[in-house]
């Protein structure tokens, strides 16, 4: 069985120079993807004004993925909310289910 990961993350903007960091996520955000997303978030410029995650193409999220989304804000020090752009219905439902809807801002 070919074990191709079904997740990718691309940093569209690092947040350098006091701008928002933008990461584009594609695929299934689970424990496997969480490791890679964490590594990518760690590269966001600490001076970024916000972290925006474009999740339009995220087809699945479980609690491991949720954990990384929640931790994204920690990168900027303050308790600043992560922006989720174009959140799919399944992700919104999971956030409702876990009572975490208020921890994010939504755009798109």
């Amino acid at each position, binding site marked *: 069985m070919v*074990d191709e990961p079904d997740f990718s993350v691309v940093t569209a903007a690092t947040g350098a120079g006091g701008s928002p960091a933008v990461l584009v996520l594609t695929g299934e955000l*689970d424990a*496997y993807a969480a490791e890679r997303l964490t590594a990518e978030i760690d590269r966001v410029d600490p001076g970024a004004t916000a972290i925006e995650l474009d999740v339009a193409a995220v087809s699945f999220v*479980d*609690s491991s993925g949720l954990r990384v989304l929640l931790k994204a804000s920690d990168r900027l020090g303050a308790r600043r909310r992560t922006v989720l752009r174009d959140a799919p219905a*399944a992700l919104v439902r999971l956030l409702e*289910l876990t009572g975490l809807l208020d921890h994010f801002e939504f755009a798109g």
Partner: protein
Amino acid sequence: MISYWLEGPTSWSATIATATAGWPPVLARWSRPDRPAERDGSPAGSAGAGTSMDVAQVRGWLRDEALTGLPIPTSSRSVSSMVIGRRPMTADRISSWMRRTATPLGLAADRDVLRTWDLGETLHRFTLPCGPEAPRLARSTLRAIAGDTQPVDDILLVVSELSANAVQHGRGPVELRVHSAADTIVIELADSDARSAPEVRRTPIYSVAGRGMSIVDTLAAHWGVTVGMEWKTVWCEFRL
């Protein structure tokens, strides 16, 4: 050694019963709402009176409490392991509970007392790799089995949580078993760690850990843990 976790749907009681001393420990004992629940972390062998039953008592319990009047066919499987339940037991919960218990010492011979039923189910078994790729493989397996059958999204989410738990907190090899029948699907994740079992945690508002089993608890019709000497199985059931 036999141990039993018995839950009475009519008396709303639950007790661990052990035939011999040793592991597993007595975890808890529930009783009717008018009696306070007890917790007991002591080993089974040192359990006080009232926390264990011998085989005859187990038989009596099954006859009196569990199976009377339930609309299930008759056969002879019974209890050989501990089932930790999280909810009051209903008739259908008992059927799912009985279904995944194995043949114990002595009990199976008594066909008048114990019943099982032919579910006409299909069992699929897969060994999962003990790495972060396990949840994805578990999901693709379930996707192939469940197809578009609702609630497929819930099923995929729950199997992802359970397989992540199994590889992160359990011990390999991890086996995924799927029992699919006409109207139900039962998913089991078995690993070789009998010492820890998942639980639903009340997570603090900013906590980011421990949400997986809350999700399972919310979405699955039933779930539970069966613990043997050197393995445990976390199972959940969905109505299709």
